[in-house]
Structures are given as C-alpha cells and as structure tokens.
C-alpha cells in the first residue's frame, strides 16, 4: 500500500500540479506533473522526503501523443518504492527546468537527454556535449523518432576536434586515456595537476557508444533485445538481460513462473561471484600486487565453467526471454553447483583472512578515493561505493525482484568510504552470494520455465526495473510499443552514476592514486557508453587524423 500512501502525501502537498498518476503495483508510482512544476516537485522529493536519484529519461513521444516526455526516476529505498516524476513537453522547442542545482547527480542524464532527444534543460550550468561525437551537427538528435537508426547527417564532420576547458591557473594538464594501461576501455580524463596533486579533471567519454537503444527501438523484437542487452556489458551481462526482461514483464503485467525466478537469482549471483573475484584481483593488480590477482582469477575459474555447464557459455548466458528463462538447472547440475560453491568458500576464506591484514594493500588504498555519505547522496553513487561509505542500500533487499524476497542475506556495509572499504565490501559479499545460491537451490520448486504468452503485449505501458549488478544498481525503463518492440528503452548502468563521482574522489589526491580511485568504482565504459551511431575518434587529443590512421593500418596490413 506504500504507493497509495505516498501518492496521498503527494496529493496533499502538490494538489493541482499533479495531472495524472499511475499506480501499477504496490511498489511503483508514476506521477505526471505540469512541466513547470517538475523542479519544485523533485526538490521536495529529493530534499524533504530523502529519495535517491536514479535516472533521467527523455523520450520522443510525438508519433503517439504529439509530445515529448521527460521522466526523473527516484527510489525510496526504505519504503521499497520506485517512483517516476513525468512531464509531457510541447513538440516544438521542448524545454524543461534543470534540476541539477538541487540534484547534481542528474547532470549527465540531462546532458544526454539534450544530445540524444533534443530536450533543452534550462538552467543547467555545464551544457557541454556528452554523448554525441563532436562533429555531429547541432539540431540532429539520434533518438528522435524521425531519425533513422542508420542515419549519419550530411553535415557530419569527423575532423572537428573537441574543445577542452581551460585549465585552472597554476595547473598543468596531464591527459589520462583515451587508451591507458589501467583502463580496459577508452575514456579520456584530462587531469589538472599542481605538482603531484590532482586539482580537478575534465571527462570526455562515450567513445564506444553503439546506438543500442536506438537499434532496439527501431529494428529488434521484444525477444531479440535480451540477447542485445546482455552485450551491453562484458561482466554484468546477465544483469542487463534480466533487468530488461523484468521491466517488460512489469509493463505488460506478466509474472514469470517461480522456478524461472529462482534460476534468474542463481545466475545473477553466479555472475556477482565471478565479478567480485575478478574485481578484487584487478584492484590488486592496479596497486601492483599481482599474486592475489592470479589467485582470485584461479578461484574464479570454476564459476565460469559452472556457468558454461548451465547455460552453454562462460559469460553470455542468453538466459531470459520475456516470461521466463531458457535453461534449466537439473538435479545433476545442482549437485555440481553445490560442490563448486563449497570449494570456492573454502578457498576464498583464507584469501580474505590474509588480505584483510595486509599492510601493503592498506597503505595504497586507505584514505584514497574518498566518497562520503554526502557525496553518495548528491551524486547518486550506488553499489559497493555507497555501501563502503556506510549507506545501507541494496536493490536486492530494497526493491526485491526475481526470488530475492524469498531468501535471507545481509547487506555488507563499511564506514571507511575509501578504496579499502570497497575492497572489503566486495570481498565479503562473495560469502553472501554463496549463501543466497544455496538457499535458492534448497527452495527451488519444480514447474515450468516459461510463461505461456497468448496475447500481444499491451501498448504504451511503462515498466521499470532495478537490478543490483556487482558494481551497483542497473536501472532499466521501458515503454511498450507497436510492432512487437518497445517504444523507448532506457538503460542506466551503474558506472553512469559512479563515474560522475570520480572528479570529487580524485580531487586533492596524488596523481599516482588516480588509477586505483578510478579502478575502485569498477568502471565499465561499455555500459556507460551504450548508445552510439558512429565511431568517435575526434574526442581525443589528435595527433593523427582518422584517414591517416586508416591509411597507416592498411599499409601495414598489405605490406
């Protein structure tokens, strides 16, 4: 009943400002307000009701309602409620008041909305281009419905360079990236340093932005998209797969069979296990402690083999379709999974015991990359970064999905707010994941794997789903549509929020700590940059032009 109570509270407070409200279930609330009052309403929700900012979504709804749509999603974690504040904007010159001065975390969301949908956030202080390549002409917005999915505007100029900000006085500039040994994916940080100390940075990313959302909205089907969603990320693929499917199921009011929910939970936890082990290894690798890197990868390997046995692949599980799962966990697999978990637990325990007293790692990580509870709130940081700062949030418990409401587990928190605490949180969460999988194996009931879907999915319904990925909350928002595909699908990956906290984390720190600070959020640039139409090379400081580079590579290949 929490959605209804919250809505009554809104009604008393805002009254005539509310145009319409949808309460699809107990834990979901969509409030449509007048565009001019969005700022006022979000301020009240964020400040006084202490909601957590989740995502900003812009959508082109012109072919259907003749208007643009903007949604700011918030989460009430203690009340177990996900809430969207939506507003329809007029079709010509869509504008909305920016909420970034109250909710700094919305900065990227609004910049992305401006780039891709062309909705102008009025009053945003830093309206630099975020997603689109620099040579992309003004006034062309890829996510508008009248832009084709494979369209490159005629005025596109791949040679145009990115204009960097002026460095503050007395500061040197050190480029970090786009290709850097500690980054597995391209992102460019321009560090402003004073001696050894970092004073600020400018970020230019979205270089591997691949147009996934546009592709899904214009080319693929409901049941094709899970396989695409899974490829958003190489580590938390199953998370995106499940989050997409759950948001569609929620929009269409479908309930997957209980066995399917348990299997989803098991696969998500398997993925968390392998991701945590991988990250602890990588973090140690970044600080130069390769012994543990090797060991955690060795301990992780049986999990990959187990996933391969269950789903047919080490990493891309291709697990979900709308209304169920595709792979069964047979009694033989159950037995094997149990023995793999036992072995993992017995091997991981001595590693954690040894590492948690290791002075060398502590010296490199304690007090480094600090993001305290205040920053967590204002920048919308999530996952292990938030939990390491003592903020007790976890989607698995706060917004239960799949079978998480039927299992018991503890949410691990630490108080240090630094890289060391993040390491401890992730190392300890491994045991909780093992606990969850064991409970699922015990409780799993027999039954069908897939729901029988007889009717077409309803049109124009909204669904949202938050899934706790290993590195934070992954949020999907879907509006169902015609032609067997969604009208709008928005993915907010965890790194999208956590990366915005990086400038604050690295400020006034030594430049040598930059790598581990960045590594500590487990950045996944492929998740963050998920929607692109063209290859961007112009974002980097250019020495070679694209043509020259191409010529050079061709010469190399031929010769």
């Amino acid at each position: 009943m929490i959605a209804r109570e919250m809505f009554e509270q809104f009604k008393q407070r805002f009254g005539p400002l509310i145009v319409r409200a949808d309460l699809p279930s107990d834990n979901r609330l969509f409030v449509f307000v007048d565009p001019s009052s969005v700022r006022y309403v979000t301020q009240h929700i964020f400040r006084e009701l202490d909601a957590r900012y989740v995502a900003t979504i812009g959508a082109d709804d012109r072919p259907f309602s003749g208007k643009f749509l903007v949604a700011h999603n918030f989460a009430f974690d203690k009340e177990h409620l996900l809430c969207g504040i939506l507003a329809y904007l007029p079709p010509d010159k869509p504008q909305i008041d920016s909420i970034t001065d109250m909710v700094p975390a919305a900065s990227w969301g609004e910049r992305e909305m401006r780039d891709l949908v062309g909705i102008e956030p009025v009053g945003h202080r830093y309206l630099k281009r975020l997603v689109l390549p620099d040579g992309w002409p003004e006034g062309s917005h890829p996510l508008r419905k009248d832009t084709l999915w494979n369209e490159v505007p005629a005025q596109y100029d791949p040679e145009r360079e990115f204009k960097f900000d002026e460095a503050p006085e007395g500061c040197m500039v050190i480029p970090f990236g786009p290709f850097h040994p500690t980054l597995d994916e391209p992102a460019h940080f321009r560090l402003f340093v004073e001696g050894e100390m970092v004073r600020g940075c400018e970020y230019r990313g979205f270089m591997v932005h691949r147009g996934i959302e546009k592709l899904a909205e214009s080319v693929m089907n409901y049941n094709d998209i899970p396989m695409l969603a899974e490829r958003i990320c190489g580590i938390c693929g199953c998370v995106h797969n499940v989050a997409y499917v759950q948001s569609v199921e929620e929009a269409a009011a479908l309930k997957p069979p209980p066995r399917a929910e348990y299997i989803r939970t098991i696969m998500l936890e398997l993925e968390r296990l392998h991701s945590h082990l991988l990250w602890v290894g990588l973090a140690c690798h970044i600080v130069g402690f390769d012994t543990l890197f090797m060991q955690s990868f060795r301990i992780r390997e049986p999990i990959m083999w187990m996933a391969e046995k269950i789903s047919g692949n080490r990493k891309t599980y291709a697990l979900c379709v709308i209304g169920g799962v595709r792979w069964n966990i047979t009694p033989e697999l159950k037995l094997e999974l149990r023995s793999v978990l036992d072995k993992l637990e017995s091997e991981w325990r001595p590693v954690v015991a040894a590492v948690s007293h290791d002075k060398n790692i502590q010296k490199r990580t304690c007090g480094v990359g600090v993001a305290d509870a205040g920053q967590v709130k204002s920048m919308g940081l999530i996952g292990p970064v938030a939990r390491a700062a003592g903020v007790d949030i976890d989607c698995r418990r706060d917004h239960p999905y799949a079978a998480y409401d039927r299992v018991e587990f503890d949410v691990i928190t630490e108080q240090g707010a630094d890289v060391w605490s993040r390491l401890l949180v992730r190392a300890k969460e491994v045991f909780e994941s093992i606990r969850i999988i064991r409970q699922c194996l015990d409780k799993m009931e027999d039954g069908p794997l897939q729901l029988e879907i007889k009717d077409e999915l309803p049109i124009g319904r909204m669904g949202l789903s938050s899934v706790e990925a290993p590195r934070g909350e992954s949020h999907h928002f879907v509006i169902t549509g015609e032609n067997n595909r969604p009208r709008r699908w928005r993915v907010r990956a965890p790194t999208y929020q956590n990366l915005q906290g990086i400038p604050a984390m690295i400020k006034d720190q030594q430049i040598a700590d930059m790598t581990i600070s960045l590594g500590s959020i487990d950045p996944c640039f492929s998740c963050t940059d998920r929607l692109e139409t063209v290859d961007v090379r112009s974002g980097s400081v250019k020495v070679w032009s694209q043509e020259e580079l191409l010529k050079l590579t061709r010469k190399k290949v031929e010769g």
Partner: protein
Amino acid sequence: MSILSKLGETLVCLKAGRVTLPYPAEAKPLPEKFRGRPIFDATKCIGCAGCANNCPAREILVYDVCQEIRILKYLGRHCAYCGRCADVCPEKAITMSQEFENGTNQIGDIQQRLELFMSTCQRCGRCFKEPSVLEQLKMKGYRFDDLENERWIFRSQATLKGEPAVDDLKIELD
C-alpha cells in the same frame, strides 16, 4: 601482523599448485550444452524461416528465387551464438555444435547455404507456428533479403510504397 598475512598469502599460492591448462595442445572437454557454431541440416529443414525471423543478429537470410526454390543463408559474421534459431526451429534442423575455434580468413568456411525445394500449401501459404506472439515478426510484404550484399531487408517496397523503408533496396516489380 603484516608478516602473518604475507605468510597466509604464500600458503594460498603454494596450495594452489599448477593450474595452467595445456590449451591449445590439449583441449578441455566442452560441456554437452555448449553453444558453438550453429549447424543447419538441409534434409530436416522445411524452409519456414522461423530462424531468420528470430535471429537477434539478423544473421540468417531468406531469398525466394522462384515459387519453388528458397535459399536460406547463414552468414556467420556476427552471430552471437545465442541459440534462438535452434529454439524456435520446429523440425530441430539446427544444432548448436561444439565448434568455437571459428577464426578464419575466408568467411565462406563458416557460412552455410541451403537450397530448399518448397511446395507451398495452397490453403495457408505458411508452415510455421510461432511459440508465442512475441516470436511473430510484424513484417508486411515478402521476405526478400539481399543475398548479394548480405543485408537483411525489413520491408519490401512492393507493398509499402511511399513509406520510408529502412536499409531498403529498390525492388523492381515485373
């Protein structure tokens, strides 16, 4: 205490022993369910094009040469090995094989081309019942993919004149 933790770490390493596998000299056996390159069985295939309609990567093309001959081509370029084609195939003509070492200089090595002799049912004109409504491709017109350029075509202009067709070809009508 740090010396103790170092000793602990040493113990973890010593206990592990040697774990490197001698791949590729010796291949690790694959699980039964492994999803490798899909193999099409021309003798079982009835040419319903269910696989082509449900391939997320659009890797399977269908082209009707004439009323009786249908060509089904698997391109093998960016197949995701998701196994949806094998799922929806009503005749189980597609198996996900154990082959994963598919690196090649010649794409023809992994492409497959099926020439199917079709006899159309005069009553219904189709032969594929989708598992659910979600598998239906909401496509009007004929399946007429561009085999030469290996492109999937969404809609043939034959039935949808004037509408902006995506990645379309100009199909000449008789």
